[in-house]
């Protein structure tokens, strides 16, 4: 039920109303002393308990999450987070351990981290793993620091260029810049594959690393990956894989076998830990054996029968205070162990099948970026609908009215009016069919009644927001009228 008349709590305030009436305490009352810490200029709402409870309960019912409905947000892999992961991470020994406890006291925790390092190493084919990065972008940053340190160590400080395709996630050039590297753009073809000629022209003795996303941000597998990694290696550079799309590759291929030296993986995507406001991220970095000595610390190793934290010989340093997001690591570990090797491969197979099913059913209605089979996500273009005045953003808003979260829009930047759809393996055919039906309905409507789309959403607590005005003149705090 939607109550468009929801009044802000501040505006419900009536002088003298209280949430709690305490009984008299039977001792004389004294007023608080005057102090600069007692500010009188802050308006606080005076409301009854019932009104307070209703206010927040009603607001909470407006939350949209993977637990409430389909969330086809391309590149974000909004898959279901099995509740068993939550139960296991809540076991007292995990949840109550303190990061300052000695190694002897937390052997079980360290063993889980050690095993998870090995599992991620096996999955990606890059056996040396640090669980320290707190998010995908920090994993990228750690990976680039490792690449830079490797070259410095080999007396090649001149290598300060990161080659990055124009279809990359925006975090790639940002991470390169943070790591002190200059980002140089590599062109991609219309289908998002790396332009080999442009790559050959730009590779030189100053290249530190090539960063590429596999599958690409267009949801396609890079057909020339072996040639690309060879070109970079022949020039003395390293290859970094952005593992944001690892959900498509589990048990099918390994980064390490494709000539990639470094990658990261977002546990909060591929390994089903909460994200998108639902929990802290985690972006472990995986490297080939020859780069192990540069990993961030603490790194976990097994020494005799004991698990210990140590600092690798030429470590790039600490990324944060303690171990990374430990609770998230436990959830990812539980996910991997509950599925096993075969189960993980099925995850990727089903993610690919679901995305291709959507692509096939929608290709008559929306422009496809590529005629090739996609991997775990498909990128459609609303260029046909645009001719009738309906843009990708309008379609996204109309989907909200239909009860779905919007897909990723306007990314990759190289696709006009992009709509990037990632169903993940979690969704049933019935749910996916409902989404397809809504997408087809919107496409039909764009020809017959485009206004109904361009005015959407109409069934939500707020209608079309003025995004430009919100960005130009944001109002970030309540103001008394």
């Amino acid at each position, binding site marked *: 039920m939607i109550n468009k008349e929801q009044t802000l709590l501040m505006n419900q305030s009536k002088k003298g109303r209280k949430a709690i009436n305490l009984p008299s305490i039977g001792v004389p009352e004294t007023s608080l002393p005057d102090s600069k810490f007692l500010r009188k200029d802050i308006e606080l709402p005076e409301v009854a308990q019932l009104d307070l409870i209703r206010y927040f309960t009603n607001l909470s019912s407006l939350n949209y999450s993977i637990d409430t409905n389909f969330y086809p947000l391309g590149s974000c892999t909004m898959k279901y987070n099995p509740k068993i992961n939550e139960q296991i991470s809540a076991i007292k020994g995990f949840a109550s351990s303190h990061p300052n406890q000695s190694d002897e006291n937390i052997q079980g925790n360290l063993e889980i981290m050690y095993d998870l390092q090995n599992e991620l190493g096996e999955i990606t084919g890059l056996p040396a793993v640090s669980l320290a990065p707190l998010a995908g972008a920090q994993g990228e940053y750690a990976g680039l620091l490792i690449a830079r340190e490797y070259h410095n160590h080999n007396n090649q400080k001149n290598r300060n260029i990161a080659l990055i395709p124009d279809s990359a996630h925006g975090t790639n050039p940002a991470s390169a810049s943070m790591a002190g590297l200059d980002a140089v753009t590599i062109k991609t073809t219309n289908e998002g594959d790396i332009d080999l000629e442009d790559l050959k022209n730009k590779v030189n003795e100053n290249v530190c690393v090539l960063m590429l996303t596999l599958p690409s941000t267009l949801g396609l597998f890079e057909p020339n990956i072996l040639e690309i990694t060879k070109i970079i290696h022949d020039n003395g550079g390293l290859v970094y894989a952005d593992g944001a799309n690892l959900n498509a590759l589990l048990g099918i291929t390994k980064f390490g076998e494709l000539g990639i030296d470094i990658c990261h993986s977002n546990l909060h995507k591929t390994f089903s830990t909460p994200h998108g406001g639902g929990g802290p991220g985690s972006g472990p970095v995986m490297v080939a054996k020859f780069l192990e000595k540069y990993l961030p610390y603490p790194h976990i190793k097994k020494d005799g029968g004991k698990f210990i934290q140590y600092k690798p010989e030429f470590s790039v340093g600490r990324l944060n205070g303690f171990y990374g997001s430990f609770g998230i690591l436990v959830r990812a570990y539980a996910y991997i162990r509950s599925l096993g090797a075969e189960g993980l491969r099925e995850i990727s197979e089903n993610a690919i099948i679901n995305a291709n099913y959507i692509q096939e059913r929608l290709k008559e209605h929306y422009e496809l970026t590529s005629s090739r089979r996609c991997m775990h996500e498909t990128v459609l273009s609303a260029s046909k609908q645009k001719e009738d005045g309906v843009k990708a953003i309008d379609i996204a808003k109309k989907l909200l009215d239909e009860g779905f979260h919007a897909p990723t*829009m306007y990314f990759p930047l190289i696709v006009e009016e992009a709509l990037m759809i990632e169903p993940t393996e979690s969704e049933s055919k019935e749910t996916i069919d409902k989404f397809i039906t809504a997408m087809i309905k919107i496409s039909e409507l764009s020809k017959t009644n485009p206004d109904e789309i361009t005015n959407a959403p109409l069934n939500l607590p707020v209608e079309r927001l003025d995004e*430009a005005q919100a*960005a130009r003149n944001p109002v970030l705090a309540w103001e008394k009228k």
Partner: protein
Amino acid sequence: MSEIPKNLKYSKDHEWVEISENIATVGITLHAAESLGDIVYVDVNSLDKNLSQFDKFGEIESVKAVSDLYVPISGKVIEINEALLNNPEFVNEDCYDKGWIIKLEINDTKDLEELLNSEEYQKII
């Protein structure tokens, strides 16, 4: 179809340039403005700098994306449209007049040979 003034020259990156004696005025085209959508921020960090043709002179941010801005002609950046910095919507409202972004002092016009006229620009959009 986007309006393309005949008196301007255009880069493949969708900037326009107008030459008046040794001053070049630069902005982005209507096609670029429409593709970007509502502009929310214009950032120019190149005042007083000498730039070569197609060097980056700033960034423009819309509700969709951030894009780099490139000078279509070599020269020294001598003026920024201050009114635009506070009113980025000028780019959407009137990209060829109120929405101009920078002025360059130029030495010669030979760079213009690398640019497109209105008919050639029409063909690439």
